[in-house]
């Protein structure tokens, strides 16, 4: 085990996989000399050279597409999007091309590509640089969706992503980059997709939280423990594939659930998860699942407004109490 930040964990896995497999390369804006504006590719240029660590022009559709083509031609590209908001300028290459190639062309092609980058609030980047966009990739089939919530998950899920033969959307969170945690030194350490992480067992209520909200859910669980409420906390880890079984079984036990994420609440991942739970554990539910997510307004710049838009720990606590005592 080593103590690493989330950003370092990502960097190290990229480096290790590039060392092991010369098909792996990385491209994106400012990833070479600059090492990525969040430092996730620091030092890679020196070690691997400018062929395998490629600065791209600002043309996301072009270089995401180039990643797809390279993957079709036998390489294993990692494409960094500086902000996941820029999926919007490359959406066609992502959802009409990468996601569809294998199936639409009859199941022979493989597109082993990772699209990674960060999203979310926390740095006052305003409405066009703070969105959580995982929902699009849950809804349109063809790409896997990973949401690491800790340095160790970042490492383990990224290794799985790079080795996966399908296109993977790998969502990092800007507010997690500096968080530290233990990461296994095993260069084969990988976390399987589609297996949720039960961060804490509990019997009274289940909180399902993704990304930032995995740790916030843990904080809430601790707070509520003092009040005698025993919370089970689940981090789905990947949304595609989704470990519905773990979530349903948890709610069969607790009878109550809160789902919380930073993406907008309406039509967000929480709607899907709440529906899955309701379908799978209806008879066990003592209250409807409560969903928490960002309000339906553009993410504002001002810190106070930003916090007013996304769920706070207090909101989660209130939601837990609502599902418990209604």
């Amino acid at each position, binding site marked *: 085990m080593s103590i690493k930040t989330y950003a370092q964990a990502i960097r190290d896995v990229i480096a290790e996989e590039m060392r092991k497999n010369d098909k792996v390369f990385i491209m994106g804006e400012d990833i070479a000399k600059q090492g990525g504006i969040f430092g996730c590719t620091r030092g890679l240029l020196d070690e691997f050279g400018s062929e395998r660590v490629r600065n791209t022009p600002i043309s996301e559709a072009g270089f995401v*597409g180039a990643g797809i083509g*390279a993957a*079709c031609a036998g390489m294993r590209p990692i494409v960094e999007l500086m902000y996941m908001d820029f999926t919007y300028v490359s959406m066609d290459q992502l959802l009409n*091309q990468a996601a569809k190639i294998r199936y*639409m*062309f*009859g199941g022979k092609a493989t597109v082993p590509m990772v699209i990674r980058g960060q999203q979310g609030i926390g740095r006052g980047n305003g409405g066009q640089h703070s969105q959580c966009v995982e929902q699009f990739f849950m809804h349109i*089939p063809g790409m*896997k969706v990973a949401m690491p919530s800790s340095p160790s998950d970042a490492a383990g899920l990224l290794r799985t992503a790079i080795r996966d033969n*399908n296109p993977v959307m790998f969502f990092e969170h800007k507010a997690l980059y500096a968080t530290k945690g233990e990461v296994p030194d095993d260069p084969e350490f990988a976390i399987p997709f589609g297996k949720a992480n039960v961060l804490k067992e509990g019997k009274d209520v289940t909180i399902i939280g993704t990304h930032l909200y995995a740790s916030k859910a843990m904080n809430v669980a601790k707070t509520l423990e003092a009040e005698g409420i025993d919370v089970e906390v689940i981090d789905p880890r990947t949304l595609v594939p989704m470990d519905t079984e773990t979530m349903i079984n948890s709610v069969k036990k607790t009878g109550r659930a809160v789902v919380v994420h930073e993406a907008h609440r309406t039509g967000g991942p929480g709607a899907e998860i709440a529906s899955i739970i309701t379908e799978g554990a209806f008879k066990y539910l003592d209250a409807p699942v409560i969903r928490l997510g960002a309000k339906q307004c553009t993410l504002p710049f001002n810190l106070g407004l930003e916090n007013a838009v996304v769920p706070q720990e207090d909101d989660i606590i209130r939601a837990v109490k609502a599902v418990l005592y209604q």
Partner: protein
Amino acid sequence: MIEKERMIHIFKTMNKIRKFEEKALQLFEQNKLRGSVHLCIGQEAIPATVCSLLRDVDYITSTHRGHGDCIAKGAELGRAMAELMGKATGYCKGRGGSMHIADFTKGNLGANAIVGGGLPIAVGGALAAKLKGTDQVAVAFFGDGASNIGTFHESLNLASVWKLPVIFVCVNNLYGISCHVSESTSVVDIGTSRAQGYNMPGYSIDGNDVITINDVMEKAIARAKAGEGPSLVECKTYRWFGHWTGDPQVYRTRQEVEDWKQKCPIKRFKEYLITNNILTNAECVEIEEDAFNQVEAATKFALESPEPDTSKVMEDVFCEN
């Protein structure tokens, strides 16, 4: 310069494409094909000549009007026709249809129903070649209309700054659906004018002339293989039929169509072959008949092929690792 062998190959390919398309039209009119079928009759010189210079390891990406490209890149006519009919034996198991034929084993990275969608993917094929250190090249086929969409620009710039072995082949058939190129496109010569924005050679040539296309493509491919980077080749041509089968064609006159039919690339190349004693008229006719027969056999195969098994509809979304 085209070797005799390759000339004959090109002529065969052009005829195969023509017969395939004629058959597709007929089948559509007989309700044996559904969906959007975009014919490339009149444009055959371009895919046939370009792909005659490519090997199976070289890549292409193609468009909604992609039958010619995929045949020229080595597709089996039967599996291609079966795909048009949505049959289980088709290249995509019936999931893709006319607009989505791909065959990675032949370097065909796929047709694309999104205008401009294939250009970045071809750039990626070329990038892979560069990274692997091979002498593979990639060709992106696209239309005049496609030259106005963002991915055109991003792809040409990217390929240029990275000096990638890719050739951008713009098939300018004067229209994007009903929209004349002069209404949609700010320059007359897409090849020569737009290349200047990307520091690459640009050509605007007669796309109905095999010899010209070949000359220019030989230069472009040599440049690509020498590591000097991409080229933009605009081939001016014309589609004889509507944008798709069923197009009322209110946007052009019969006369214009007739005029262009006089410039038939197959007739023209046939005359060239005969004049230059490469083939006799009889040999040409034999090739034409052979193409017809191949298409007939392909059609029979396709018609007799089974429908896809609906119970397998969820297969292949993801591959197992």
